């Protein structure tokens, strides 16, 4: 299993390196513009960093889906499926590698974000003032939300788990397309509709199961529901691969 995870990482590490390099470049630009008081440019670098954080995490998931698709539909799949490993292990290694990558990327961008926010407000000395302003705004909207690190951490965790669930749902839709609907009319549309249905079901479960909970625990429950759906979809995907996959 460790070898499978190692090679899953090896297949995707270049993209991660590129995301890291661009982030480093954007961070340097952010620091320079911050300490040279170029406010307009500084705002642009902040926007770039926010986009990189979300885009980077999304890209890691999309690349994992693309690699899974290639492994099932191109000759390079022989390298993977001729090894004496079950589909449960092969798929498990993909889910674990992607989950860990998302977690590391999420933690990295969260830490970087926290550091940069501290630097911005440390530089202008307006951190507490702005936080109070946002909290007052939230209070006026009757959301009762106290904005702090814990809230951001909860949101980040929920976002990452939800995205991992989306990636595993995409695996399942792709396996259905490759194994059960291959050569059939409207193959792509049927699997896409199935993917949308899975996403809707997850969202519906998240909303209906957490509607009466306090907002602080909603993020945690959303994360747990996403992970539970991901686990169910993982078993279903591996089962189908085990029975029907021909590379």
């Amino acid at each position: 299993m460790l070898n499978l995870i190692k090679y899953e990482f090896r297949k995707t590490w270049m993209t991660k390196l590129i995301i890291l390099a661009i982030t480093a470049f954007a961070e340097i630009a952010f620091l320079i513009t911050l300490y040279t008081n170029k406010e307009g440019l500084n705002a642009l670098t902040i926007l770039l960093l926010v986009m990189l954080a979300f885009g980077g995490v999304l890209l890691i998931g999309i690349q994992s889906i693309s690699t899974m698709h290639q492994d099932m539909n191109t000759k390079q799949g022989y390298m993977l499926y001729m090894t004496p490993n079950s589909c449960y292990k092969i798929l498990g290694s993909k889910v674990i590698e992607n989950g860990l990558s998302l977690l590391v990327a999420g933690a990295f961008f969260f830490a970087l974000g926290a550091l940069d926010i501290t630097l911005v407000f440390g530089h202008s000395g307006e951190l507490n003032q702005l936080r109070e302003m946002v909290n007052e705004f939230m209070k006026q909207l009757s959301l009762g939300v106290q904005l702090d690190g814990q809230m951001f951490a909860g949101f980040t965790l929920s976002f990452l788990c939800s995205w991992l669930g989306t990636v595993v749902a995409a695996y399942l839709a792709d396996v259905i397309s490759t194994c059960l609907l291959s050569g059939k009319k409207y193959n792509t549309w049927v699997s896409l509709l199935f993917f949308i249905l899975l996403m809707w079901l997850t969202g519906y479960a998240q909303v209906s199961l957490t509607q009466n909970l306090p907002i602080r625990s909603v993020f945690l429950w959303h994360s747990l529901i996403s992970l539970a759906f991901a686990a169910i979809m993982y078993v279903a995907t591996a089962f189908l691969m085990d029975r029907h996959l021909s590379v």
Partner: protein
Amino acid sequence: MLKSEAVTKVFGSQTAVDQVSLTLEAGHIYAMLGPNGSGKTTWMKMAAGLSKPTSGRILFKGEPVGVKSRASIAYMSTEPYFYPWMTLKDVGLYYQDFFADFSMARYQELLKRCDLTEGLKTKALSSGMMAKAKIAVTLARDASVWMLDEPFNGIDLVARDRIKEAIIEAAAPDKVLVLSSHLVEEMEAIADKGIFLRKGQLVKEVDIETERVETGCSIADEYRQIYGAQGGTEVC
């Protein structure tokens, strides 16, 4: 060692392999012969556990082929299949990580024999170099069954001779080798058994030497007889 029981594989409306039953015994080199579309590759992929039969089954040492048998069956596809980011050294390390029967020393020796170096990137290999690299890594396994699909495709005469040597070296009383090729005459020098497929069906299984002694027919003559114009010509 390897037993195919009424194996059929259907792709949509196309039957690629149709009720193929055969038994491959240890200690033999089998030439699997037939024109394009005769079902050789599809049967091999099923025997390697890469593809599932629509009906029937393939047994390795009495058990259906699958995850476990992949540790003992070495398959070489005719198409290139290495990851494009790999060097030939990475390919060896990959096989070492996944196959307990893989010998890095044997792989390095076979690469040298094929005039290849470990530093070469797989995406930069010519088709001939790729064919040699695939054979080197496959034969570096001490498998119970080797299945080489079109091993001589795109390989020059000198390299072909070296590969033939390596294939013959791999043969042993407890091993099975299955080779498919369009180069029928080349197979004559290596194989001792012939399996003829046509349109997915098993046409004939022959012991090449016995056939030659009893009927004076070479494997190439057999091929002409089975696949010649209008369904075959009497040549011997």
